[in-house]
């Protein structure tokens, strides 16, 4: 095959491109945190998931133990069904509870798993019974205003 006098420089150029791709995948992206670990799936029903999205983190004591796989709406119970993929090496008691929490004041939402006390452990396909919905800012504010109004009303006749 014919040689080209540019082979060396083109080789360096291609290498530079590969380095740039690698930089973006490892330093900017999250390729290292994409785990190929085996997981088991559990479900949880929530009255309101707020802004939870698929691929959101599932954390326990602040450590990422899994990811949200899918979110569906159940037309029988009118609740949101969230499928959680939890890594196989982490096991939780059967009566663990799931909460939807927010990172920071306006940050992204994640699921916090709090372990219960039961001996039996969660296995694939189980349902987490105790759940706590996302805090919706609007309802929180309206509740606060309602309480304020109630306080104001009750304080008047006491005079």
């Amino acid at each position, binding site marked *: 095959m014919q040689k080209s006098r540019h082979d060396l420089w083109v080789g360096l150029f291609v290498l530079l491109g590969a380095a740039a*791709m690698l930089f973006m995948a490892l330093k900017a992206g999250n390729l290292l945190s994409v785990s190929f670990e085996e997981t088991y799936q559990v479900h949880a029903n929530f009255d309101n998931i707020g802004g939870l999205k698929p691929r959101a983190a599932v954390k326990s004591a602040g450590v990422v133990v899994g990811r949200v796989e899918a979110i569906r709406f159940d037309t029988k119970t009118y609740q949101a069904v969230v499928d959680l993929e939890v890594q196989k090496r982490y096991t939780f008691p059967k009566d663990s509870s799931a909460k939807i929490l927010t990172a920071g004041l306006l940050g992204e939402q994640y699921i916090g798993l709090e372990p219960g006390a039961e001996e039996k452990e969660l296995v694939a396909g189980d349902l987490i019974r105790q759940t706590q919905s996302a805090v919706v800012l609007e309802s929180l504010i309206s509740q606060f205003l309602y309480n304020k109004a109630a306080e104001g009303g009750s304080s008047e006749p006491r005079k």
Partner: protein
Amino acid sequence: MSTRRLALTVGAGVRRLLENLGYGARFLLGLLMASLRALRRPWLIVEQVHFLGNHSLAIILVSGLFVGFVLGLQGYYTLQRYGSAEALGLLVALSLVRELGPVVTALLFAGRAGTSLTAEIGLMKSGEQLAAMELMAVDPVQRVLAPRFIGGMIAMPILGAVFSAIGIIGGWLVGVVLIGVDPGAFWSQMQGGVDVLRDVGYGGIKSVIFALTVTFIALMQGHECQPTPEGVAHATTRTVVMSALTVLGLDFVLTALMFSI
């Protein structure tokens, strides 16, 4: 009478448009077929990658660095109002990887490499070199156009990746080194928000599509130009204008398709 003339003008215009579209599609198909055959002469492709890629590296590196600088400054200015300057890394990385990397690289590539392709082939045509090749039973599409096409398709995605990477470094220089955003938060926010497949991968696909578009437009303009000095000049101008408009329009469609969910 005047309605008749209007109908004739509109009809001729539509017909010319359709003809051009059909010819362009046929040209692209022929170019793709010829590219498969041109793979047998890889040294010709290497020459073109060197010419289109290595020589464009300087402008890509400098532009990428400065786009990163500006993103760092402007992003910090807006984000610090909301007390979330740590998200600067995410903002810089996402805007570069998803949009600015592929698009600005395509525009620069059209200006730096596309014009030289058009002018080169246009001059070869006006010097009757292409006709001479055909007389010698050498297919000019396979021998001249196809290696340039493949070369552009290889060089531009690499340039796009280099642009995004150097831009992120530029954003880091301004954000972390100059302004003093916390480096840990800068990188961890970036890694938390940038998805390798959905962001970096789709950006790469965009780069490949833009490479095909820009290289194809440049080659076709060169091949179809009037073989006169004015013709080559017009073709070179059209390459830049058409490439820029097509890339920007296509970018909107691709973004809507890829990131709308």
